[in-house]
């Protein structure tokens, strides 16, 4: 009996192997609506061809898990990343360029030029853009009206913003801050310390990739924010007020709960407002630049192919599938990674976003800029965050804080090049 059974099982095994599909893994940290979108795309891709089966792996602590899998020689075939991490991943030898992606059907002409530039490093393309988040100031129109300001006209210059911030700040009978005029990012987990030098005409790296944290424009930017904090009161008053902030993605978000009148954030804040305070009357505008030329900080979610991925062909075919406008436009974002012409052409395929026109109008009238491409980005961001918060909470001077960042990040860069 067993003699007959063995060849039968062997034939069945070989038969199943011959007809089984190659599994392509996509590692992401998305869990919510974005996960549903990418999972439904994988399902659709799996149903229209029989060579590959895409599996979406949703994980927490994605950086650690990805690097561990890479070290073990078993990386995913596609990794979900962010434009800021292209340079560090390339420096570590963790991802491969995908300059040939157009051969698989990705039409790079459809993408916003600046979005593609942001994910190129030393001339090579490393990813396919998936979604984009635009940053700017959100303001509460009702609280503007209450303070006697025109609710439809947000501050358009740095001086005006400072003036509005002062006018909108309220104190209680104990002298504690009750409502803050403008919060540029006092919350240590939701702050963007790297964007400010760009609004003041500076940059965090020079054209040769050298660190320029203490360049005059960076110092000037941080000085402006320290002046803003001094205008609100003392270090203790600010620490006390910020200590009362609730979780960012909740009804107790400082802007959603109307304790902050103007805040700097990514477009996702609109989703938090819609969810927890849909009655709020708000607006969105670019953060004013020193030279008064409108610009907006932007972040892009991208898909990259790790070095050592076993099914590069399948991965590129899936990325080509995701890149089709009718698929990319399924992501619930106000501004697409695609050029506006293509967005209009495929408007029927789009998921409608309630505030899309507002964000689109802003994105159309500003120059989008991105985080600097440096291999020591993670350390740079960490040190800048500490420096920016120290400046905001009046613990140190901008020049001392930025000199310290310059010293530490230059050292990190030196260590990396050893």
């Amino acid at each position, binding site marked *: 009996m067993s003699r007959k059974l063995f060849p039968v099982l062997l034939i069945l095994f070989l038969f199943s192997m011959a007809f089984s599909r190659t599994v392509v893994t996509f590692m992401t940290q998305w869990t919510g609506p974005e996960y549903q979108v990418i999972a439904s795309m994988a399902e659709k891709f799996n149903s229209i061809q029989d060579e590959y089966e895409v599996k979406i792996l949703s994980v927490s602590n994605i950086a650690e898990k990805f690097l561990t899998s890479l070290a073990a020689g078993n990386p995913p075939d596609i990794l979900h990343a962010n434009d800021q991490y292209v340079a560090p991943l390339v420096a*570590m030898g963790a991802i491969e360029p995908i300059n040939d992606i157009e051969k698989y059907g990705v039409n790079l002409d459809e993408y916003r030029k600046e979005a593609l530039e942001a994910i190129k490093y030393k001339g090579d393309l490393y990813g396919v853009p998936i979604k984009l988040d635009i940053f700017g100031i959100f303001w509460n129109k009702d609280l503007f009206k209450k303070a006697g300001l025109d609710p439809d006209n947000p501050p358009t210059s740095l001086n005006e913003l400072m003036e509005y911030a002062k006018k909108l700040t309220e104190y209680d009978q104990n002298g504690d801050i009750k409502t803050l005029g403008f919060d540029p990012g006092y919350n240590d987990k939701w702050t963007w310390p790297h964007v400010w030098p760009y609004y003041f005409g500076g940059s965090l790296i020079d054209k040769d990739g050298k660190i320029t944290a203490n360049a005059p424009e960076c110092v000037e930017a941080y000085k402006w924010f320290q002046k803003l904090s001094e205008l609100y009161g003392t270090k203790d008053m600010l*620490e006390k007020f910020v*200590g009362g902030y609730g979780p960012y993605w909740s009804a107790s978000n400082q802007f959603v709960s109307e304790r902050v009148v103007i805040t700097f954030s990514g477009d996702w804040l609109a989703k938090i407002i819609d969810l927890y305070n849909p009655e709020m009357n708000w607006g969105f505008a670019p953060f004013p630049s020193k030279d008064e030329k409108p610009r907006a900080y932007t972040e892009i979610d991208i898909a990259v192919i790790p070095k050592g991925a076993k099914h590069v062909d399948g991965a590129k075919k899936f990325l080509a599938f995701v890149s089709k406008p009718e698929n990319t436009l399924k992501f619930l974002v106000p501004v697409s990674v695609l050029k506006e012409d293509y967005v209009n052409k495929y408007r029927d395929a789009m998921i409608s976003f309630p505030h899309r026109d507002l964000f689109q109008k802003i994105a159309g009238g500003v120059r989008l800029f991105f985080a600097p491409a440096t291999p020591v980005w*993670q350390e740079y961001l960490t040190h800048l965050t500490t420096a920016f918060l120290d400046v905001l909470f009046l613990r*140190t001077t901008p020049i001392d804080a930025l000199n310290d960042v310059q010293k530490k990040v230059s050292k990190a860069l030196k*260590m990396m090049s050893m």
Partner: protein
Amino acid sequence: MLKKSRKREIIWGIIFVSPWLLGLMIFYVYPMISSFYYSFTKYTVISGPKWIGTFNYEWLISDDIFWKAVANTFYFMMIGVPITQLIALVIAYMFNYLKEMKSISFLKVFYLFPILIPGAILAIVWNLILNSQYGILNSFLRVLKINAPNWLESVQWSKPAIVLVGVWYIGTSMIIYTAALNDIPVELYEAANLDGAKWWTKLWKITVPMISPAVLFNVITGMISIIQLFDLPYILTSGGPSYSSYTWAMFIYDNAFKYMKMGYASAAAWLLFLVTLGLTLMIFTLSRNKIYYGGEG
């Protein structure tokens, strides 16, 4: 020449302990040896290690953040260990004094309870308690007309806040002290009473020497656990503000897993190991003649 049965016993003994030995070799000995080697290399996990000699140690010595982390860790050790041990001892002494009371077991469970809660969850709860505006602690302080500090947001208060939360972990030490106090022969106190000894004399001449091995054990284990402090500051303050609650263990974690500088992190980990070993040996040496193990005359 070993007897056949003795030989068999030895073989079986080795077989029985081999899973543990194997685990020890794989999960402790090998990582320790390899991390020592990595501490002399530039290693990002992805690309292979590159020998750079003592550079990691030299960088560490000139790294301000490393020294801040070391200073904070020593603060937690020098302030946290004595405070927690003293509180644990006082409570254990109180339990011992009231041991005839029926509800004493319930009280012991009450004090032991926090150690049953995972550190991460405890930290989240304390995050709410210590909230400077809406936290219950500051609300209570305001009722008492005491100026309520910004516990987790201020550079001055972040470390005391973590020490305060650490006091909740006294359960294990307290149980060890209670057991040690229960083990003291009653005859010693009876003899002292006959000699007319005062409460203070009995405490210093009988209680303290008799529980000294328990004190030594608790101080060493407390020191080792605090020198590795990670979860409480990581969740409560993320090491901030301005690195004021950043610990040695957090420094190792960030360099290893956030910046992928495994060689640098290994160097910091080896220094931590050497300091812990040195402190333990120092405590043993200094306490050699002060610990009473009984039966020595």
